[in-house]
């Protein structure tokens, strides 16, 4: 049967293409990670984590200020982004039928996908121009805007999973509804919410574009919330496009640190959600 042979051939072509696509994707991942580890590891020593970057062209130096700055920025962003995100998520879950909630849900998803550089420019126009200086606060503000929709969405999902019986039990004890929600419902939905927070931290740890236009650039350790601050992803960018071999090496080292942070977050999240939803 001729036609049968043709069909079988098409099937073979399809299967090889599909598996090739997957293989290609996996190879890209392995190559990127492999290169980051290979090039990054040679840049890393004890001093790498604490020293300031060496002046251009000079060997050695570290990315201490970048690590510190990123931690400061993430903490500051969390302070603003997490509470707002959680409450927005609670609202979406508890009032899921209301028109406002569906509008919020819709724009929340739009915001999730929004270009981070535009968010950075927004932070610039609203904070940097006002304060007349690049600052950690402006950067954290931009990062917080990126966090909110992620935290909100995961909080909503996990609050919705809390069984009605738990709320009713709390209400029956005479606990007011708002307390029930904040204490009992939220603590029951704790795991999902934490997952969302971790995901959002993993995302903002590597965000570079909004920082370029908000925090300036610094070779120094943190000196105040209203001052320019160093950041790991900015170090990667600046050092990578520099012509100096020693700085490029610092860029790879920073990339390794960043990638490890992000991967650890994701593997932990993945393990948690797998146990839960299996």
């Amino acid at each position, binding site marked *: 049967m001729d036609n049968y042979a043709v069909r079988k051939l098409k099937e073979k072509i399809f*299967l090889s293409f599909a598996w090739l696509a997957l293989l290609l994707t996996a190879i890209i991942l392995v190559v990127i990670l492999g290169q980051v580890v290979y090039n990054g590891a040679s840049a890393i020593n004890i001093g790498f984590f604490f020293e300031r970057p060496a002046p251009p062209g000079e060997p050695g130096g570290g990315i201490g200020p970048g690590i510190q700055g990123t931690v400061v920025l993430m903490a500051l962003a969390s302070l603003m982004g997490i509470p707002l995100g959680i409450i927005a998520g609670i609202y979406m879950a508890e009032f899921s039928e209301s028109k406002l909630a569906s509008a919020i849900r819709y724009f929340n998803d739009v*915001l999730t996908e929004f270009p981070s550089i535009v968010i950075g420019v927004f932070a610039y126009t609203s904070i940097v121009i006002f304060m007349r200086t690049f600052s950690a606060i402006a950067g954290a503000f931009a990062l917080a805007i990126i966090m909110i929709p992620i935290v909100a*969405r995961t909080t909503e999902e996990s609050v919705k999973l809390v069984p009605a019986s738990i709320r009713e039990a709390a209400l029956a004890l005479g606990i007011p509804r708002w307390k029930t929600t904040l204490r009992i419902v939220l603590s029951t939905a704790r795991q999902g919410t934490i997952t969302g927070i971790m995901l959002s931290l993993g995302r903002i740890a590597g965000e*570079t574009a909004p920082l370029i236009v908000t925090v300036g650039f610094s070779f120094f350790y943190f000196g105040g919330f209203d001052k320019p601050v160093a950041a790991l992803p900015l170090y990667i960018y600046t050092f990578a496009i520099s012509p100096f071999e020693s700085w490029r090496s610092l860029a790879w080292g920073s990339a390794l640190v960043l990638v490890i942070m*992000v991967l650890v977050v994701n593997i932990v999240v993945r393990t948690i959600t797998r146990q839960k939803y299996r």
Partner: protein
Amino acid sequence: MKRPSEWRLSTASLSYGKELAPSFFYPTTPEYGGRRIMPKEITGDRVFTWLAAGIGSSVIIIIFLMAYELIKESRLAIDKYGLGFVWGTTWDPVFFEFGALPLIWGTLVTSAIALLLAVPVSIGVALVLSHFSPVRFRFAISFLVELLAAIPSVVYGLWGLFTLAPILRDYIYPPISSTLGSVVPILAPPVIAYSVMTGGVILAIMIIPTISAITRDAFAAVPLAQREAVISLGATRWETARLVMSYARSGIIGATILGLGRAVGETMAVTMVIGNRFEIPSTLFQPGYTMAAIIANEFTEATEDIYLSALIEVGLVLFAVALVINMFAQIIVRRSLKMFRGAVRE
């Protein structure tokens, strides 16, 4: 890491709907109606309700505020250049002559290249992950693909700068350019490592996880009865895949538009590999520029108000493009998921 959109879509099936999430804050809800006689609690609840609604609305407010701020701060440029800004082809920070056409062109072309490369690959990946691989491997493979989404943009840029671009220039571009170049003028030699094409390739790699995760969910939602029907007619796996794809067509479209939205706004990786030359190049193997890239690259250098204002206006154009794409994408993705749920329940 799953980027937020994939996260949301793949956990969407876990939300149980309203029966598990009673809107019990409503004072009028019958089961709790008795509480109305306890004014103290009502006050607390009411305050909390308004507070939550206000804070929840912040995501909407942020978007409107963003539009307002961007318009306000680009006023200077808008007034000076008018609509000509959008099709102007000069970018001269010395004599203050600004037009954004090459940037818009660069953004659209890199995104188009990215979609052209990423959509077929993502559909292939999604088909394998949803139906054509042993079930026990699926969790692990999806995780690998999702890790690709977790890698920060700037790391892609670093890798693209030092590894991908040279490889493409030395081994991939020359054969393509020398064979197809005479037929398709935009692929003609010479080839440059840091070019529009490289920007498109790196974007493609970055949006594969987005597109494949959403199409995978759409494919997985195709009812078993549909697949069995076509298999029982003696379909090969390719014919089964065609049925799955045609059933999940709207999911593929939604995923593609979401991928487009991401490609349009992606900044760091493109900035690092596209060459950042302000012109509409004659071939894809020449350097170009994108809207996002010019903001990242020149923002801190812009000291004159009009220069800064022009850059913010570029941001405004990007804002508008991204807003339209994302609003459209969300509507389509929602509708397709709703359709799937309906079909599954049936």
